[in-house]
């Protein structure tokens, strides 16, 4: 069947060929900002914004051309990624390349990242105006984007790690942006340290996979065992031993857990809210934290085989994802800090993505990354907008907010849209992604987790309602009501207080806010909000399953088709002959590459930027993922998609609605009506007879809801979870440091200083002691000297006599 492969040229294009430029632009502008930023009129921010716009353009171009490429290809054919490698460095024959691996996933994420970064930077122009470290902020922000983009285009694991770590560094710098306060820098430290802990997995995993795969990939594809392309095909080739790939996958997933704030390593994420709001919005909602998810999606075949996804039984990823969803969602209830609510909701959304990936719902998960980015960014920026303009730089919903909808209509509107999207209400974007995940999870036989997903949806709706209510409805409280904080109270919740963001030089504007009272933010803030909200509303239609095939563009463009392809077909894709030459020009390049580039494909098309692929006609179900391909290799496992059913959709809608109503009701009871109502109620309960029960039932319900359901959810369970979270997990994370220090101290004091060192110093003192012990020998008495002299002689003589007779 492989013989009658038909060669068809694939479209490519300049932007596609040069997608690697996307990360390079911000990287360069980072240095510009560092070195010249301070001297620029806008303190370097213009570099940042400009570079992000630049990358956005390039990313857009790449995306467009990718779509062209896909559309140009026959239906269901495997559209080979546009890959380029240059040897970065070489060590005893193992070459570490750097380059690009551009396919649907890449361009999608590139687009999102570039887009969100741009908006966030624009937003920050206003939000951080006058900040003490304005320039540093933009520098780090830009570098961060560079890192993320680099990770997305990464051609191999090393490059990916590079981007991954740069993000870690930037998150450290950005979370700790206001490092004057210990809490912030501690949060930064914690974030870096936690993710770094996960990175153990990344390093070991990479090592394991590399050494197990390298031989195969070099032989078959002529690429090193670091190459993402190589690893993907290798995973599905049936070559890997079970142990190796499983270990590798698990290790890598641990890294993902750390980065994507999955249970149990999610605790750093809420603390990371210590950073400025734009940071939270960019790093800790829409881009960096999805790096882990991206890693799984990127090397999906590896996890697919390693974790035995679709193997019928629950696997590591899906379990973790599921747990995370619930845990995080429950936690979101007890937060009074709006950003923390959003943070936990992020965690639980990431949980969705993981669960989806774990359950074989690759596409919906990726799509959820896509949509989630928009509305979560929007929510965070919204929260920022509130604190910036209305709540006196506080994020305390209960203390400082409430009834803001009249004051900040735009913020309110965008907020509502995004919330609906987050809750997955039709037809907002969240619906099309999140619902798909739940749907496919169930369809792939992970029923338990489908219910988990639904429960998550319910909780999401509930806590978002609560947050919304507390923020926008009811009466203005605290700062929003124009109260001035005493400086002490001001600092008392300093950890989440942005007062520092204007620096001490800007206190006047600071007070100006308060005097004006709540008001809408400036256009630099609202415009991004509006744009994001629009996308939160619309982006779902990229892959609107309900409206049939022609709306499933995202699927078409992004999902690689699982198909056995000619290894040379893939391996040849060094970005056309032209690039192949570039590749071969680099002196230390692996010869294999040229080998397969020229010898193995005699009919290599001459036109640069055209690739060959082979498709088999009339081929229904690909063997990829299930059994090993006879000839050729697979690039992606065969996945199946749940057909859309309104019934299921409706059901989930209902659940969301229930969550919404319930929560709303409870909120009103709690925060609007306050206690007097049911104080009276209880009296009446005591006084009145049995007949009013039905009337009273309402209040019974009231009581029931308030006292039992809400309490039982809010307090015992989630409190318990929260306690577990704060005490145990957090304890572990923080404790790790302290205990390590403790151990260290002990080792240092006892082993190092006493034993090891003591041994050394000991010998010295022993020698000294011996010295004084021997002094009596030197008594100074001639006779004794003589005695000694002759005694020694006599003994010696005696011995000799005895020996020699």
């Amino acid at each position: 069947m492989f013989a009658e492969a038909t060669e068809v040229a694939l479209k490519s294009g300049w932007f596609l060929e040069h997608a690697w430029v996307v990360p390079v632009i911000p990287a360069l502008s980072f240095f510009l900002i560092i070195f010249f930023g301070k001297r620029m009129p806008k303190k370097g921010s213009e570099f940042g914004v400009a570079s992000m716009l630049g990358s956005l353009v390039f990313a857009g171009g790449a995306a467009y051309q990718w779509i062209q490429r896909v559309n140009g290809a026959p239906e269901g054919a495997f559209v080979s990624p546009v890959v380029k490698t240059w040897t970065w460095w070489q060590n005893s024959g193992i070459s570490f390349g750097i380059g690009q691996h551009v396919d649907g996933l890449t361009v999608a994420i590139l687009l999102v990242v570039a887009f969100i970064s741009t908006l966030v930077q624009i937003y920050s122009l206003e939000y951080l105006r006058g900040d003490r470290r304005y320039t540093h902020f933009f520098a780090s922000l830009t570098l961060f984007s560079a890192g993320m983009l680099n990770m997305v285009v990464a051609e191999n694991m090393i490059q990916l790690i590079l981007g991954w770590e740069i993000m870690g560094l930037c998150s450290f710098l950005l979370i700790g942006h206001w490092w004057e306060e210990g809490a912030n820098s501690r949060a930064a430290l914690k974030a870096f340290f936690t993710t770094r802990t996960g990175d153990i997995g990344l390093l070991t995993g990479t090592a394991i996979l590399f050494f197990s795969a390298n031989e195969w990939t070099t032989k078959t594809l002529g690429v090193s065992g670091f190459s993402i392309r190589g690893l993907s095909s290798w995973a599905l080739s049936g070559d890997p031993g079970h142990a190796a790939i499983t270990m590798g996958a698990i290790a890598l997933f641990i890294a993902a857990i750390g980065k994507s704030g999955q249970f149990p390593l999610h605790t750093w994420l809420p603390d990371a809210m210590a950073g400025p709001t734009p940071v939270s919005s960019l790093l800790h909602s829409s881009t960096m934290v999805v790096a882990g998810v991206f890693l799984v999606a990127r090397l999906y075949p590896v996890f697919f085989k390693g974790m035995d996804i679709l193997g019928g039984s629950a696997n590591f990823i899906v379990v973790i994802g599921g747990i995370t969803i619930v845990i995080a969602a429950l936690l979101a209830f007890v937060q009074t800090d709006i950003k923390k609510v959003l943070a936990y909701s992020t965690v639980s959304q990431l949980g969705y993505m993981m669960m989806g990936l774990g359950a074989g719902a690759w596409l919906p998960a990726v799509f959820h990354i896509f949509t989630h980015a928009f509305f979560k960014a929007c929510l965070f920026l919204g929260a920022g907008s509130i604190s910036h303009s209305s709540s006196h730089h506080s994020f305390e919903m209960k203390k400082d907010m409430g009834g803001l909808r009249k004051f900040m209509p735009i913020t309110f509107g965008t907020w509502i849209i995004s919330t609906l999207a987050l809750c997955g209400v039709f037809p907002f974007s969240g619906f099309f992604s999140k619902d798909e995940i739940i749907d496919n999870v169930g369809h792939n036989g992970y029923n338990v987790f489908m219910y988990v997903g639904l429960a998550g949806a319910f909780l999401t709706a509930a806590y978002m309602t609560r947050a919304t209510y507390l923020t926008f409805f009811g009466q203005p409280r605290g700062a929003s009501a124009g109260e001035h904080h005493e400086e002490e109270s001001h600092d008392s919740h300093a950890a989440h207080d942005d007062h520092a963001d204007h620096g001490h030089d800007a206190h006047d504007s600071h007070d100006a806010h308060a005097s004006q009272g709540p008001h809408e933010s400036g256009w630099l803030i609202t415009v991004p909000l509006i744009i994001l909200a629009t996308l939160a509303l619309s982006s779902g239609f990229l892959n609107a399953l309900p409206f049939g095939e022609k709306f499933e563009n995202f699927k078409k463009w992004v999902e690689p088709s699982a198909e056995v392809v000619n290894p040379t077909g893939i391996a040849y894709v060094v970005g056309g002959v032209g690039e192949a030459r570039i590749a071969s020009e680099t002196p230390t390049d692996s010869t294999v590459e040229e080998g397969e580039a020229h010898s193995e494909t005699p009919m290599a098309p001459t036109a640069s930027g055209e690739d060959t692929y082979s498709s088999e006609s009339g081929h229904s179900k690909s063997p990829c993922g299930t059994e090993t391909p006879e000839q050729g290799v697979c690039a992606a496992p065969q996945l199946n998609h749940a057909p859309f059913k309104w019934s299921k959709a409706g059901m989930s809608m209902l659940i969301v609605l229930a969550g919404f109503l319930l929560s709303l009701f409870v909120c009103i009871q709690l925060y609007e009506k306050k206690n007097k109502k049911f104080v009276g109620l209880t009296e009446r309960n005591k006084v009145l007879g049995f007949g009013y029960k039905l009337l009273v039932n309402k209040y019974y319900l009231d009581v029931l809801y308030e006292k039992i359901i809400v309490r039982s959810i809010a307090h015992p369970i989630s409190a318990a979870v929260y306690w577990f979270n704060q005490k145990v997990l957090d304890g572990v994370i923080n404790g790790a440091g302290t205990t390590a220090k403790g151990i260290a101290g002990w080792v240092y004091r006892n082993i190092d200083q006493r034993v090891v060192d003591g041994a050394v110093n000991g010998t010295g003192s022993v020698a000294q002691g011996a010295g004084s012990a021997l002094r009596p020998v030197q008594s100074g008495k001639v006779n004794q000297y003589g005695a000694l002299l002759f005694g020694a002689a006599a003994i010696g003589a005696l011995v000799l006599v005895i020996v020699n007779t």
Partner: protein
Amino acid sequence: MEVISNHNWALTVGTFLPLVGVLIMLFIPKAEEALIKSVAIATAIATLAVGIYTMVQFDFGNAGAMQFVAQHDWISVIKSSYYIGIDGISLPLYLLSMVITVLVMIYSWDHVPSPGNPKAFFILMLILQTGMAGTFIARDLILFFVFFELVLLPMYFMIGVWGGENRQYASLKFFLYTMFGSALMLVAFLALFFKTGAESFSIPFLIEQGMNISRTTQIWIFAGMFVGFAVKVPMFPFHTWLPDAHTQAPTQGSVILAAVLLKLGTYGFVRIAIPVLPEAAKAWAPYIGGLAVIGIIYGSLGCLAQTDMKRLIAFSSVAHMGFVMLGISTLTSFGMNAAMFGMVAHGLITGMLFFVAGSVKERYHTLEIKRISGMLLQMPKLGWILGFCAMASLGLPGLAGFWGEFPAILSAYQPAPGLSVNVFRTYMVIAAIGTVFAAGYLLWLFQRIAFGEPAAEFAAGHGHDEDIHDVNKFEWIAWTPLLIAIVVFGVYPQLMFKVLDPAVGVTLKAFGG
């Protein structure tokens, strides 16, 4: 080995030029401090120029082979000769030693530690330079030994005379430790000499003959060398001299110690112990690797326990050299390359860290982590440089540290044939955990020192102000090259690997690559 280049005078000149400078300085009266300093720096720069000339003339296409080889009779009666040469392994370290010396001297221009006396101070540094450079080019065991020992006295005095409160103890300890090591090393060399037929001390010759020695004998001889080199590295449990020496030494001493002297040990392993005694190396590798990872974890824990910045950095050296030794112990060219790279990277980074520590000490008159904070507010540049070095040191990709650390970990996954894979994979995981610790203590240091508000005692108007100024001219001159090098090697490691790789390949012939 045939003479490849006819510039074989270059190495000799590059090695002994500092001594000429010393001779000149001897005749300059003590009072002429400026003159003394400039003569010394001029000498160092001239030396560096010769070194760069060597590099330019170096045939990179043939980096595996000995170049600039020069051989003359020296002590014919014990069959030891003045036999020098340079290859891909020696070259980076050879140059590193020269660069560091120049930078340290420039730094010393206005940083001569008490009790002053720049004349002696600079003279000692020049002598050190000769010793270090000589060790890296010696091709004859006895010559190697002489140079190896030559660095002892100058460093002893540097620590003992210009050091901190507890300097005398520290210097003596440093000296006795190293001397003990080299005594055993010497015995090992001699045993090697006689077991190979008492014909020559030349390393190439011994490499040819070494494998004929019976395995058990090899193991014993290796043991001797092991102690000698391990003390210098320093490997757990021979490391206890290091923290004291570093803490007490003057900044310049610490920098040279960290940047170059520690490398003498690892270099000894790579250049002598392993290629000459392959069998023994195989037998020892697991234990070396084990000690290496212990060193990694142990050093990190040590760091976490420290309250003194300089001491913390010193312990971090133990951890980093652990990575280097792990790479070496895999006996694969991959790991060896990583180790060599790690040596240079550690030289640059930790050297830089010690520079910073020195400047901090000079400004705050203390290195107690508890007392210092908010450095970024008072001295943003210095603070960020510290941050940069911390990041580099914890192995952030894109900076030099990563390319020594990560490949070393990687290499442990697949040690040379004949070594227990499982053992080394365990090492790999432990080492990976070590990287987390590294992040832990370095960021912890950075956070506590650089972040936060300045401590009251150092805040403006509390006496110390006049000392608390940001990076000054000489510091910039001395540091910029290092900082740039850290970035350059991080971004384009190929620069070094392409030099190391062939040489390492040659070194590991006995192991089939």
